[in-house]
């Protein structure tokens, strides 16, 4: 059993961690094609359709983290409509751990700041094309 702490998971752009994240998620889904007919005995029948996914990340705003991908880098990716090389993986991989790699676009970037509260960001990347998994060896 190798259950691990979710803190270890991160989103990387060009192999570099998105800075000051507090939460991240990878969401995959598949559309289905309905092929239900009168012969289906009252049960829906499906064919597999298009697979797609998105990666989301949220955290605290830092405009000047030169070492990692900060909010400035995220805005540049949005402004330039850059196709980003994304990775979703554990910080300290051990044998058998999976990392997921794909290309994606930053389709949503939200920044907010409440009174007497931390300034936060939220980013969503829509995956374009295939997502591949690699097991650490």
């Amino acid at each position, binding site marked *: 059993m190798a259950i691990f702490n979710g803190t270890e998971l991160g989103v990387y752009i*060009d192999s570099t961690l998105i800075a000051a994240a507090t939460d991240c998620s990878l969401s995959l889904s598949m559309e289905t094609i309905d092929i239900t007919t009168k012969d289906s005995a009252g049960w829906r029948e499906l064919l597999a359709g298009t697979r797609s996914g998105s990666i989301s990340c949220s955290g605290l705003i830092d405009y000047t983290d030169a070492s990692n991908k900060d909010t400035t880098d995220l805005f540049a990716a949005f402004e330039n409509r850059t196709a980003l090389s994304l990775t979703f993986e554990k910080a300290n*991989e051990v044998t058998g751990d999976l990392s997921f790699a794909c290309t994606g676009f930053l389709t949503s970037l939200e920044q907010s700041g409440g009174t007497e509260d931390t300034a936060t960001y939220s980013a969503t990347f829509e995956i374009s094309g295939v997502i591949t998994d690699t097991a650490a060896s």
Partner: protein
Amino acid sequence: MKVTIQKACKLHGNNWKKGDTPTVTTAFAEKLKKKGYLDAPKKKTEDESNDITEE
């Protein structure tokens, strides 16, 4: 994983200076290690620094 950059590095759209401590993927850390960005610069040995031969 967190790494310490030992010499200025421009790779994968990054622009790190010596001493930066980015968190990178395990695979990329290996690449940085292979390319020598994570090793302390090799000090010149005494033989190398006395290369100039005097006549």
